[in-house]
Structures are given as structure tokens and as C-alpha cells.
């Protein structure tokens, strides 16, 4: 399955991926309208320390501990893609307790959100990857 992979030596720490992510999941088709004066809650996190930086998003694990720990049965695996049914989520944070990568976080609406590889929004392909100016994140089969 194609996943988002990180090449940290190429990451500039520019945080553009976070903006592209927030836009892609906003449901709006205008990036300015989606982001201007809004609190953004991207589904990926940039870690930064000194000269090192990299983006962390859901690994779509073959052993999805978030799914197995979800008390609501809200997280499922669809052909390898780990997705949340936000209507079932009660915001208990069990998935945050379980994910070894720290890849889930609450949305503005106070339900859990995670990277779904833009497969469940209108874009179809990870917009963070398309927006990365230095190919520090790629979407490919490995």
C-alpha cells in the first residue's frame, strides 16, 4: 500500500505541509478561505530540534493499536487505510494512549482526527506531499 514516508534530511521545517493538511481537510476549495484567521489543526505534526526537523503523520500500521484500543469501535481498517468514523468517537483519548507515533489529535470539533492519506476527503491524494517544496515527504509504495 502507498503511504506517506519521511526523508528528514530534506525537511526544511517550513510547516507548509501543516497548512496544506489543514486546507485539504477543511472541506473548502479555497485555501485562503480555509486558513485565513482560522485556528488550524493539521493532522500531521512537525518535530523540530536544532537543525533537525521532520513531519509525523499516521503510519497506517499493520498492527493498528489505535484501532484495537478504540473504546467506541470508531476506528477501522479499510484495505490498509486506518480511518476514524468521527460520528462514533467520544473523545476519550484511548487512541492517543495507544499510538506509538503520537499521530492522533483532537479536531476543532473535539473528536479525534488522524491522517487518512486524503483518501476520505475530496482530494484523493495526500495534499501535504504535493505541497512539500523539497520532497521531504513522499507518497509511495515501499
Amino acid at each position: 500500500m502507498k503511504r506517506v514516508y519521511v526523508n528528514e534530511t530534506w525537511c526544511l521545517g517550513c510547516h507548509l505541509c501543516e497548512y496544506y493538511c489543514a486546507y485539504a481537510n477543511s472541506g473548502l476549495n479555497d485555501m485562503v478561505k480555509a486558513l485565513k484567521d482560522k485556528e488550524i489543526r493539521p493532522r500531521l505534526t512537525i518535530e523540530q530540534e536544532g537543525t533537525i526537523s521532520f513531519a509525523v503523520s499516521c503510519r497506517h500500521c499493520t498492527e493498528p493499536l489505535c484501532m484495537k484500543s478504540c473504546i467506541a469501535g470508531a476506528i477501522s481498517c479499510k484495505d490498509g487505510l486506518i480511518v476514524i468514523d468521527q460520528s462514533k468517537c467520544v473523545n476519550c483519548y484511548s487512541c492517543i494512549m495507544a499510538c506509538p507515533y503520537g499521530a492522533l489529535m483532537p479536531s476543532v470539533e473535539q473528536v479525534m482526527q488522524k491522517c487518512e492519506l486524503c483518501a476520505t476527503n475530496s482530494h484523493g491524494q495526500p495534499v501535504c506531499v504535493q505541497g512539500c517544496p523539497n520532497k521531504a515527504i513522499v507518497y509511495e509504495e515501499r
Partner: protein
Amino acid sequence: MHYLIIGNSIAAAAVIEGIRSQDQEGAITVVGEEKQACYARPLISYLLQGKTDEERMRYRDQAFFDKHKVTVLTGTRACHLDAEKKTVALDDGTTLAYDKLVLATGSSPFIPPMEGLEQVKNRFTFLTLDDAHELTAAIKSESRVLILGAGLIGLKCAEGLFGRVRSITVVDLAPRILASILDEKGSANVQAHLQQKGLTFHLSDRVKEFTANEALLESGTIVGFDILVVAVGVKPNTELAKEAGPLVNRGIVVDHAMRTSVQDIWAAGDCAEAPELVSGCNKVLPLLCNAYLQGETAGKDMAGLTEPFKQAIAMNAISFFGLHVITAGLYEGEEKLFAQEGSYKRLFVKDNHLVGYILIGKAVERAGIYTALIRNQTALDTIDFDLISRQPALMAFAKSVRQQQLGGSV
């Protein structure tokens, strides 16, 4: 091949997934005592709050059971197990033969003997959907609710009832709330938050005697109430196993593959007592994630794939009125404390390993990175522990490890 699953909750659903990952053909029968289809049990407090409904509480939908060709008998109790003949007798008079059996019978509320308890008419427990419905039907906006037990169940019940009743009073024998998962400071933090909402606590106290609408406490305090909820703890449902021979201690004793001491019988979930990672001792861990992982392990093993589940630890994620608490592991060894306004973190380190943590408030972000350190028994001298203590981050790992985490298939 006939796989028989006694119980129809989380562990049972996981057993089905485990079996079907290996065996598409064998017949599977589920016997569930409750009349409802498999539901997400811990959501009953959210149901009271109106944050979910019965439809959304379904843990696995009907399509799941259809797809996996599972026969589900709800509202049916298994009352006798004959391990020699390999049969289970049901309360509807029928008997089911099995080739492989898993006991996923869960746990029941523990109700200690208390004087006058039988005089209390509006008396409830809080573990099942039926309990939630009965409680909902009984409460009125002017009800005074008394909850015995300031543990996870009692306090989630309190949160669920909050705003729907006049008052909520909680009594516990322990000197602090959530004593099984929090330290003193953590308990005090959460208690202050709950008191601010209007809950009343009587700690280090117990009910000496009940009358119909009053509880006389050991301290002399009298608490008037209209509704009583007993939530002092749960006990594993081990009756079937006991009479059939599998070794029962506190729970049904199983190994890493969830096998009991009797051939062709497995156990998983709240009823099972399995080896815990950090202590190395057998423990009953009545937690949803362990129920799932144990069930899945049992299902796979029953169908021929032995993948021992060796990473069982205690872990809890719970919240009250927006205040989140995540805890894991054991609280022993050296401590590292990080406390500031709105955030509380205590890490426990022993022999170069993280063995436990308590996180409250903002400190819960990315908690799973800590959980993984415990579960994977990561040697702390291989990571930047100072950095990861301050904030859970993959940055703390060696670059080669990170390359595997973020650049490899996991």
C-alpha cells in the same frame, strides 16, 4: 470445526477477527447473555450524557457478523460447561458441542454486603446497557444520587448523570479518588476539578447502614439520596470455568496465547488472568484494549497461528468534563515529575526502563510514545531521555530508528 465463543462483547469480536484472519471456513457461534448486539460497553456513560446513542454504540455492526458467517445467540446464558464431552449447556435447554471454546464472559459488579442495602429500592450498578437504561428511567431532575465508589466506573457514571439530577455524592473507602490509577497529587487535581463542577465527596469513609433513602456513614455523616449506584469494583465471571476444570485464580488463568489449563479452552478479556509485562505476574486487567488484544490472540491461536501476546500492561485513558487523564504501567522506581498550570506528568523509571506514567491535562498529548517505551521495554540509554521526558517525541530516538519508524513499513 466449530468455534464457540461465550460472551458477546469486545473480546468476542476480537476472537472472531482473529479466527477469520486464519480460517474462513470453520463455523463460529457466539453466545451472549445480554439481549443487545455487541456494543461498546465503556460508552454507557456517554449514552447518559447524550454524546452517543445505541446505534452509534454498536462495536461491530450486523454486516460484520454476516461477513464472518457468525451465528449469534443473544439473550442466552451459558450455564454449564462439560470439558470432557466438549459441550456447553444453555439456559434455553439446548446444548452446543464445540471443537474449540473461548470464555469471554467478562466481569460483574462486586456488591459488598452492607447493612440495610435490601431496603434501598432505587439501587443500581453501572456496567451494562441495561444498567444505563434502568438508571435513565429512574432519575429525575430533582434526584439526589449517591454513588459508592470513586473509581473509573463510579466517576464516569457521575459525569454521565451530571446536569440531569439535583446532586451527586460519591463515597469511597480510599482516602482519594481514582486510587487505582492515580498518585496523591493527581487524585487531588482531578478531585478539585470534579468538586468545582459540584460533585460532593466523602472519602476514607464507608456506609455503615442504609435505610430506604439515607446512608449513615462510618464518620457519622448522613447522606440522603433517591438513587443509589454501587460501583465499588468488578469481579471476573469465572463460574463456567470453575466447574469445568480450567485453573481459576482471581480470573481464569491463561498463558501468553490465552490458553487455559484445559485442552481446547481459551479465555480472554475481563474474565482472564494473564501475564502482565512489567511485573511479570499474572493479573486481571479489565481494560478494553487488553480485551481486544487477548481476544485476537486467542482467536488466532484457536485457528492455528500462535502469536503470543506478551505486552499486556495496565493502561487507562479517561476524562471528566474535558479534563483528560492517561496512565499506564506500574508506579515504582525513580520518579520524574513535571507539573505546571494545567499539566501534570509523572514518569516512573526502573532499571533503565520506563515502567509507568501518569499524565493529566495538557501532558496527555502524544502519550502513546510513552506507552510504546513501556510496551517495547526500550532501553532508555538508547534514546534522548531528557528530551522525551519533557515532551513525547520521535526526535528522542536514534536517527536509524526514526528512519524505520517514518521511512519504513510498520
